[in-house]
């Protein structure tokens, strides 16, 4: 049941990201719903669950991106690990913390994604293009964190998922 719900969540997030999210473009960046979902799962269910669903969500994103399978998954793993580290060491009840974790996760996700693309010989954007995009993506993702985290908490409480220990 938990696995089916997780797969459903990731497939829905990935499909929304590649079909609808680009309509919400702000300053060149659009919401990374899979990243927010992965960090939300990490925040509510723990780092192990976050890392697992980062792999699933990343493969789904890689299926829609040019190049080999894997770079988005690796980048999402970095984002999930950041969120897990943040949730373990800071007061997770404060509402600003998830937003901060998503902003930091977005930066790390972008760096790892560009690094992975660079290692694999894929084209990467120049620094003057990448920096404004990463900053805008941080703002957009952070702004969407609280409503999406609220939805995720509501879903997990309905499914009687035990929240992860701090």
């Amino acid at each position, binding site marked *: 049941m938990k696995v089916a719900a997780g797969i459903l969540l990731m497939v829905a997030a990935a499909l929304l990201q590649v*079909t609808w999210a680009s309509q919400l473009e702000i300053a060149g960046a659009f919401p990374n719903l899979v990243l927010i979902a992965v960090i939300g799962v990490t925040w509510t269910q723990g780092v192990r669950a976050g890392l697992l669903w980062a792999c699933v969500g990343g493969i789904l*994103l890689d299926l*829609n991106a040019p190049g*080999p399978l894997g770079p988005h*998954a690796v980048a999402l793993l970095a984002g999930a690990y950041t969120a897990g580290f943040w949730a373990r060491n800071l007061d997770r009840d404060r509402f600003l913390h998830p937003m901060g974790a998503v902003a930091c996760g977005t930066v790390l996700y972008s760096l790892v994604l560009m690094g992975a693309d660079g290692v694999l010989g894929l084209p990467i954007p120049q620094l003057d293009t990448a920096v404004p995009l990463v900053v805008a993506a941080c703002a957009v993702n952070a702004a969407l964190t609280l409503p999406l985290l609220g939805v995720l908490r509501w879903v997990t409480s309905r499914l009687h998922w035990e929240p992860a220990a701090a």
Partner: protein
Amino acid sequence: MVALAVLSQQSWAAGVRGTAKSALAPVESQMMSIASAVEAATAIFGDVASLRTQNQRLGAENQDLKRQLAEMNAAAIDNKELRQALDYQRSFGHRTVAAEVVGRGPDSFSRTLQIDRGTADGVQAGMIVVSGAGLVGRVREAGPHGAIVQTLADPQSRANVFLSGSGLQGTVVGGPGALHVQIEHRLGIVPTKGEWAITSGIGGGYPRGLVVGAVTSFTHSDAASVDVALIEWANDPRTLSLVIVVVDFMPS
């Protein structure tokens, strides 16, 4: 994951990778259809809100007419796009395949589109993609029933162009906000606002004569070796729903 990335990058894995990437295309097509339906519904609600006073006066009959009008407008937009595509295919002189846009790239760094035509329809990596308005980009990868198109807005995208008024040559470089064209200096000649950037065919990457966009602004510096102009792309990637793949032109 790193091992998967390395393995799936190998040339012998291209077929499996393409098949896997094509698998999501039908679902994405359905999602795009739902998105279009939601947009149509939203448009109707917007119209109803703005015309509330009039609707109160005219009553139910007017609302019914409005609904019919919205439906006809939606059909007219579809017809216009299809007619443009058909006209383009007739006048372009190349063999083409029409494709529906079923998805977009998952991140802001690579501006790509996913289309519902692949190798089974004659689409191959490297082929150019256009719309009724002008150049869209190039097929980056092709699976059996889907392909990924790198658009001109992708920061890695390059296209050689000339300007229709001044005749200046340059290279269009993709970007998230607007397309930039790096123009060679020529004494006494500067671009003017509104002139068209058209593919020059130089380099063999694109055929000559495809519209890219119109010049919106221009920056000249005596110290720089090239001038830079901003171009308003003839296509809006956010609203592209139908594209045409030119299947008998491969870049040299």
